[in-house]
C-alpha cells in the first residue's frame, strides 16, 4: 500500500519534475503551474472553475480584437485589451472548441492589460475574454465566423 501511494505521488510529480529540471521555473512557480484541469475541461464554465473563476460580470472595458470572419481556423489572431485597473490575469477561450480554454495569461508587476496571440478555432463561435482584477472576474465576447476549422485539420 505504501508503495502504491508512493508510485501515485511520483507519477503526479514527474510532470512537475520535468518543468523543474528544465531549470527555468523556480520550484515556487511550478506549484501554481499549468492548470491541467482547466485546459482539459470541455465547457466554458468548467474551464473557468479550473482557473478559480466562478462568476463573471460582463464588462464594456474589455476590447477583443479578432476578425469577424476567419478564413483559416488554425490561425485566428486575437488581441485583448482592457482599461480595468489592477489586472491579474487574462484568459482567452473559444466557446465551441473541444476544450474551450486556449490561453491564460498571468500578469504581474508592471504588466499592462494587453495581450495578443493567435489561436485555433474548431468552428464558428464566440471568443471569450475573461479578465481577473481585484479578485473579480469580468468577461467580454466576440463572434468569429470560421470557414475552415483549425482543430484536427
Amino acid at each position, binding site marked *: 500500500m505504501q508503495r502504491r501511494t508512493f508510485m501515485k505521488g511520483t507519477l503526479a510529480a514527474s510532470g512537475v519534475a520535468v518543468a523543474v529540471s528544465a531549470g527555468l521555473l523556480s520550484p515556487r512557480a511550478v506549484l501554481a503551474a499549468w492548470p491541467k484541469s482547466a*485546459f482539459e475541461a470541455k465547457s466554458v464554465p468548467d474551464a473557468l472553475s479550473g482557473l478559480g473563476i466562478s462568476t463573471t460580470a460582463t464588462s464594456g472595458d474589455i476590447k477583443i480584437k479578432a476578425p469577424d470572419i476567419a478564413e483559416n481556423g488554425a490561425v485566428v489572431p486575437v488581441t485583448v485589451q482592457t482599461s480595468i485597473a489592477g489586472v491579474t490575469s487574462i484568459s482567452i477561450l473559444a466557446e465551441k472548441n473541444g*476544450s474551450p480554454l486556449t490561453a491564460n495569461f498571468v500578469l504581474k508587476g508592471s504588466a*499592462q492589460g494587453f*495581450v495578443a496571440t493567435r*489561436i485555433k478555432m474548431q468552428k464558428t463561435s464566440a471568443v471569450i475574454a475573461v479578465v481577473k482584477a481585484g479578485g473579480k472576474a469580468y468577461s467580454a465576447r466576440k463572434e468569429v465566423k470560421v470557414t475552415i476549422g483549425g482543430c484536427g485539420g
Partner: protein
Amino acid sequence: MAKKSIRLRASNKGGVATVKALITHPMETGLRKNKKTGKKIPAHFIQTVSGKHNGKEVILCEWGGAVSKNPYLSFQFAGAKKGDSVELTWSDNKGGSESASTKVR
C-alpha cells in the same frame, strides 16, 4: 532545432514597452491524426511562456494546444527604459524549453 526558435522584439513608447515574439513550435494538440497511418499525432505544445523585464517576471502565459502553430505573442509592460533587458522563456509538455533575450529599443 538548430536555429533559434524565438524571434523577440521590444519597443518603447512613453515608458510602456510592447514586446512582440514569434516562436517556432509545432503546437500539436494530440487530437490530430496522421492521414497515412491513422494514428494520433502525440501532443506537443508549449505550456508556459514566461516574460521577464530586467529579470523580474511580468507575464506568465499558460497555453493549451489550441494556440496556433508557430505562436505569436505580444504583451506590454510599464516602466520601461531604453536598454532594459527583456527575456522570454518557453517550455513545452515534452520538457523542451528555450529562452531568448533582447533589449528595449
